[in-house]
C-alpha cells in the first residue's frame, strides 16, 4: 500500500480540500445573521434551515467515514456481519418520525439548544442534565475518532502516511494537518461551514458511488463473480461468510436495533434537527433521508468488491481506498479520496460543535459561570470544540484502528444510556428523575465494564462491542443490554420513589408544548437571544 506517492490523486485531493477550506471560511458570510456572537448563531446556524439544507446536514452527520470506510471494511473482514448497518439505518427513520418532532416543538417553545436543556427543564434536575451532557461529550469523541481514522486511511493509501518504520510524527503528520484545518474553519464559521460544505461532499460522494457501483462490478465480471470470490475467501480464512449463521443473528439484530436507538441521542444529530425551520421539515425529511440508506447498502457491497479485486491489506480500513486506487484512473481516485476525506471532515466538524454546545450550555453556564455573556458562551464553545477533537485524537492513538466500526459502537453504548431520560421525557413525566439518574449510572457502568472486558488478539481491552447477554446466553450488542438494564432499574426505582413520595422536581413544560409548530403562539422562528435568556 505504501508504493510511493500517487501524485495525480494527491493533486486532485488537495484541490478539493483547498476549495472546501475556502468555502468553510466564506461560509461565515452566508445567510449572515444580526448577531453572530450568539451561541444560537454559531451553533445552530440561526435555526433557519429548510428541508433541503436540513437533509444535507442530517445526511452529513449520519453518513460519514462510518459509511464509506468502517462499514465496507467490516464487510471486507467479516462478511455479512458488517451489513447490520443497513437495517440500522432503516430503523432510524420510523424512530425519527415518532419522537423528534416533539423535541423540536418543545425546544423551540422553551429555547432549548441541547438535550440536556430539555432534560433539565422537563425534570427540574441539574444532576440528570449534567449526566446527559457528560455522556454526550464522551460518546462523541470515539465517533469523531472514527472520522479521523477515515481521513488517515485515505492519506495512507495515497502514500502520504509513511510506513510502519517511519517515526510516529511523520506517520501521523497528515492526520494532524487534516485535524488542524478542520479545527480552524469550524472555529471561525460554526455550523454554517459544514452545512455549506455538505453540498460539495454529497455531490462528490454520489458521483463516486454511481461510478463505483456501475464501473467496478463490470470490471470484475458481475456480482456473481464478486460474491463467489468473497465466499471463497471467507471459507478459506475460516472467518465470516455471506450470510450470518444462527449464532450470530442475535448479534446482528441487537447491533442494528441498538445503533438505531442510539443515533438520535447524539448531540450532533439533535443539533441538525433543531436547526431546521419547522416541525414539518423533520417529518418531510424522514421520507427522503432513506436515499442515504440505499447509498450505504451499495457502499457496503464495495467490501466484497475489494475481495474480488484482489485487494490485500492487513488493515481492513484501507480496503476501500485501496480498491479505488487499483480500479480508477488516478485523477478519479483523487476525486474519490476527496469525497471520503471531506465526508469525514464535515461530520467531525458538526459533532465537535454539538459537543461544545453541550458543554457550554449545561456545564459552563449551569455550574461554572451562570452569568456568562453570549459572547463568552460562544468563545467557550469554540475552545471546547477544539478540546473535543483532541479527545478524539487520543482515542485514535490508543485504540485498535483496524476495527474502526468499534469506535462508533463504543460511543453508542454510552449515548444509548441517555435514551430513557430524553425519549421517555418527551412522552411522559411518569419516570422519577432520581430513578432515571440511577438507571443511567447502572447502564454506563455495566456498558463500560462489559466493553472493557472484550479482548481480541490485537487488543486486551475494548476489543469489541458485543458480549454474552446475561440470562439469554446469546452474543449481543453490549449497548442494548446496558440499555435494558437501565430501563429496568429506572422503572423499579420510579415505583419505589413514588411510593416514598420523593420530590418530583418542577416541570417547566406543558403538554401543548410538544405539538406546537412554527407560527403557533410562543414559538419563535429564530431565537437569537437564547444564549442570554436562559
Amino acid at each position, binding site marked *: 500500500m505504501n508504493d510511493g506517492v500517487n501524485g495525480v490523486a494527491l493533486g486532485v485531493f488537495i484541490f478539493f480540500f483547498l476549495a472546501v477550506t475556502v468555502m468553510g471560511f466564506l461560509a461565515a458570510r452566508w445567510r449572515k445573521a444580526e448577531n453572530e456572537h450568539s451561541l444560537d448563531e454559531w451553533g445552530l446556524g440561526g435555526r433557519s434551515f429548510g428541508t433541503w439544507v436540513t437533509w444535507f446536514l442530517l445526511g452529513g452527520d449520519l453518513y460519514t467515514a462510518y459509511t464509506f470506510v468502517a462499514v465496507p471494511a467490516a464487510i471486507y473482514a467479516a462478511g*455479512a456481519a458488517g*451489513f447490520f448497518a*443497513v*437495517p440500522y*439505518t*432503516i*430503523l432510524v*427513520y*420510523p424512530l425519527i*418520525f*415518532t419522537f423528534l418532532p416533539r423535541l423540536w416543538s418543545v425546544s423551540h417553545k422553551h429555547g432549548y439548544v441541547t438535550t440536556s436543556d430539555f432534560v433539565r427543564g422537563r425534570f427540574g434536575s441539574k444532576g440528570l442534565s449534567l449526566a446527559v451532557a457528560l455522556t454526550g461529550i464522551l460518546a462523541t469523541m470515539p465517533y469523531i475518532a472514527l472520522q479521523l481514522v477515515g481521513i488517515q486511511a485515505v492519506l495512507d493509501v495515497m502514500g502520504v502516511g509513511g510506513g510502519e518504520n517511519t517515526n510516529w510524527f511523520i506517520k501521523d503528520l497528515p492526520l494532524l494537518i487534516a485535524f488542524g484545518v478542520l479545527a480552524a474553519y469550524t472555529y471561525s464559521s460554526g455550523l454554517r461551514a459544514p452545512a455549506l460544505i455538505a453540498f460539495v461532499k454529497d455531490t462528490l460522494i454520489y458521483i463516486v458511488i454511481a461510478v463505483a457501483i456501475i464501473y467496478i462490478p463490470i470490471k470484475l465480471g*458481475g*456480482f*456473481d*463473480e*464478486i*460474491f463467489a470470490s468473497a465466499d471463497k475467501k471467507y471459507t478459506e480464512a475460516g472467518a465470516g461468510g*455471506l*450470510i*450470518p*449463521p*444462527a449464532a450470530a*443473528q442475535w448479534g*446482528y*439484530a441487537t447491533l*442494528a*436495533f441498538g445503533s438505531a436507538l442510539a443515533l438520535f441521542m447524539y448531540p450532533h444529530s439533535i443539533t441538525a434537527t433543531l436547526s431546521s425551520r419547522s416541525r414539518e421539515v423533520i*417529518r*418531510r425529511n*424522514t*421520507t427522503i433521508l*432513506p436515499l442515504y*440508506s*440505499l447509498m450505504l*447498502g*451499495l457502499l457496503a*457491497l464495495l467490501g466484497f468488491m475489494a475481495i474480488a479485486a484482489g485487494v490485500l491489506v492487513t488493515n481492513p480500513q484501507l480496503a476501500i481506498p485501496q480498491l479505488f486506487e487499483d480500479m480508477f484512473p488516478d485523477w478519479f481516485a483523487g476525486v474519490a479520496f476527496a469525497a471520503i476525506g471531506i465526508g469525514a471532515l464535515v461530520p467531525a466538524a458538526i459533532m465537535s460543535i454539538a459537543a461544545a454546545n453541550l458543554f457550554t450550555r449545561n456545564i459552563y453556564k449551569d455550574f461554572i459561570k451562570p452569568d456568562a455573556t453570549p459572547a463568552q458562551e460562544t468563545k467557550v464553545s469554540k475552545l471546547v470544540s477544539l478540546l473535543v477533537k483532541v479527545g478524539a485524537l487520543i482515542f485514535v492513538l490508543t485504540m485498535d484502528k483496524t476495527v474502526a466500526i468499534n469506535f462508533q459502537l463504543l460511543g453508542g453504548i454510552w449515548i444509548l444510556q441517555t435514551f430513557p431520560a430524553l425519549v421517555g421525557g418527551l412522552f411522559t413525566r411518569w419516570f422519577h428523575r432520581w430513578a432515571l439518574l440511577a438507571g443511567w449510572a447502572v447502564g454506563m457502568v455495566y456498558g463500560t465494564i462489559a466493553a472493557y472486558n472484550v479482548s481480541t488478539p490485537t487488543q486486551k481491552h475494548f476489543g469489541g462491542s458485543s458480549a454474552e447477554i446475561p440470562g439469554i446466553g446469546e452474543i449481543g450488542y453490549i449497548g442494548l443490554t446496558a440499555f435494558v438494564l437501565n430501563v429496568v432499574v429506572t422503572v423499579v426505582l420510579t415505583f419505589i420513589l413514588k411510593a416514598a413520595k420523593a420530590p418530583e422536581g418542577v416541570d417547566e413544560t406543558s403538554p401543548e408544548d410538544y405539538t406546537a409548530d412554527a407560527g403557533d403562539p410562543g414559538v419563535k422562528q429564530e431565537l437569537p437571544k437564547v444564549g442570554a435568556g436562559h
Partner: protein
Amino acid sequence: MSDAPEVNRGVVTPVRVVIALCLIAPFVAMLWVGSYAKTDPELAGIPFFYWYQMLWVLISTLLTMVAYKLWQRDQRARASQKGGAPE
C-alpha cells in the same frame, strides 16, 4: 362529523393504528434476521440476504411516506374540527 365528536377525538383511531403499523413493520421485518438469512433466491447475482434488506429501504420509505400523509390528514381533520365546533 360534528355529531360524533367523541369517536373522532379519541386517542386511538383507525387511522392512527395504520400509522403505527407502518412505523412498526420495519422493526419486525429487520429484527427477525432468521427470516432472511439465506442466499437464495439471488437477484442479478446478489444473494437474497443483501437485496432483501436493500429492498426494505424502499419499502420502509414508502411506509414512512404513507404514515406522514395520514398523519397530516389526521392533524388537519382535528384542527378543522376544533375550529368548526368550539366548545
